[in-house]
């Protein structure tokens, strides 16, 4: 294959992955999923009932893996058994995945508050009706983009894994990345805007999530509005970078050409990792200088 075509496909994959990462994070913010949801879950118990969606499907990796594997399976069935065009098959696959995801979301939203009867957390049906379509919309975008990435890897870059399995693996990865990066913005900042900026959540404030919005009561869509400014885009960059960089090293230095090229690709990957270690160190130093210590050194004082 022409190296230039390889790079073009890789760029397209990176772009699709970036969109997938961003929509994955916003989807989990609308519905409140994964680790930050533990505070939403805890709030009624601490006498803070709320109107935030409680989408406890599981960690994000399994729920995204489910969406992507269903989408990949449906697309693959439509392509093999009915000879549909890949684009149409992928769109149908994503649609079916979004419907299934909606069903999972509804069952979690009904199930969790109903198991909190003693804390008097009501089930608000208008929250269910307004949020579930948004969740399904985001999950459609995520699944569609992941399927595009997986399909391009197989059809153009010649990856040996079958489509459903590759989509499953990228689903796990996008979920792992989303819950590690963008969710922190939701959990540590958006849920606790009522405390001073620039500190982790004091354990004493657990469960005391913000429940009022600019006007009226806060809901999950308000949360995604906030997270779309930072948490969502950086999640997109993270997943885009993962897909792009892990493919980039083997596209530029193709191991199929010779063993030396293969080892050069490994060296390139290691250099990238070293750059990121140094970058992280720079951020650490800058953050410590900018924010300063929280308390004085008792020995020196």
């Amino acid at each position: 294959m022409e190296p230039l075509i390889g790079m073009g496909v890789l760029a397209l994959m990176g772009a699709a992955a970036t969109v997938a990462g961003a929509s994955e994070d916003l989807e989990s913010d609308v519905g409140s999923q994964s680790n930050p949801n533990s505070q939403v879950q805890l709030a009624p118990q601490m006498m803070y009932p709320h109107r935030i969606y409680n989408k406890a499907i599981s960690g994000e990796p399994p729920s995204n893996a489910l969406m992507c594997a269903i989408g990949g399976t449906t697309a693959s069935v439509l392509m093999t058994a009915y000879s549909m065009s890949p684009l149409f098959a992928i769109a149908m696959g994503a649609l079916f995945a979004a419907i299934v995801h909606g069903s999972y979301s509804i069952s979690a939203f009904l199930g969790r508050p109903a198991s909190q009867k003693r804390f008097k957390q009501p089930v608000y049906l208008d929250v269910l009706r307004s949020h579930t379509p948004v969740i399904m919309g985001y999950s459609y975008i995520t699944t569609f983009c992941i399927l595009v990435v997986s399909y391009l890897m197989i059809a153009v870059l010649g990856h040996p894994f079958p489509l459903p399995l590759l989509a499953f693996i990228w689903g796990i990865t996008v979920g792992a990345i989303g819950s590690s990066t963008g969710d922190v913005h939701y959990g540590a900042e958006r849920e606790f805007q009522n405390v001073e900026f620039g500190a982790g959540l004091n354990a004493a404030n657990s469960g005391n999530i913000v429940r009022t919005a600019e006007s009226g009561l806060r809901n999950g869509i308000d949360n995604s509005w906030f997270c779309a400014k930072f948490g969502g885009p950086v999640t997109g960059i993270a997943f885009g970078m993962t897909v792009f960089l892990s493919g980039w090293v083997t596209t530029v230095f193709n191991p199929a050409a010779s063993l030396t090229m293969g080892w050069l690709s490994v060296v390139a990957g290691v250099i990238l990792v070293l750059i990121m270690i140094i970058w992280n160190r720079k951020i650490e130093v800058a953050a410590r200088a900018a924010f300063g210590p929280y308390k004085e050194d008792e020995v020196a004082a």
Partner: protein
Amino acid sequence: MSAGGEPAVAGGAVAPNKIIAFGILGGLIGIYAAHFLDSMISPVFSFMGALGAICAIVWGADAVRRVCSYGLGTGVPSIGMLALGMGVVASMFGLAVGGIAGPIIAFVSAAIIGLIIGVLANKVLGMNIPIMEQSMVEIAGAGALTIVGLSTTMAGTFMFEEVLTFVIAPGYIAVIFIAGGMGILHPFNACLGPDEHQDRTLTLGFEKGGIAMVIAGLVSAVAGSAAMLPTIMIGVFIWYTSFAKFYELTKRDSYKILGSGLLPSEEELQ
């Protein structure tokens, strides 16, 4: 994810032994019925495999419910992934070497792997959960039966040649892995909380099983389209009835179901 208040009481209206029997017998009968009726009468009957898988999913969900009320130190999802991880290894082995006894060998080897991991978890890792060994056996066994059941529906038989061609090589095993795993872990995870009830959780197990059945029906179009429509229709029917039942039970169990409204007042919370 342990922020649900005090641990739920692991009892329930239906005794564990009944659900274990329901899962094993229902699972195996479904799988064998699918296999024999498919070859002897009509390929339409391969939907029986997915029915067997639903029995196993409900059983797995109940086992997860019992073990997770002890608090594992990590989320509920991990145990579902462990179940299917053990299950997929055991069921591929069972089907590959077992021939007609494949599902039973898969089930037994899953139980053995589960037992060993349960013993390791308690004795070596020091988790000290009294029912860990039994739960691991149950979860691994349920995982294996789920995988074999859904594979049988997809391929029309559990003979390894066909399963390999129609399920494993095209990668549909991945969707079995995750849809089965979510079917087992999601019901308890979605109903986690101090006022969790067994019937509501298990109803959700049927609902998620119905979704897995619809997916298996869709995939069965690749092996031959005869079984596709009946499987999808039965799956949708199971999904719909159990979802309606789940909504009924939610209305019964929840504090209030409101069309809309403000938060409960201070006096109400006292």
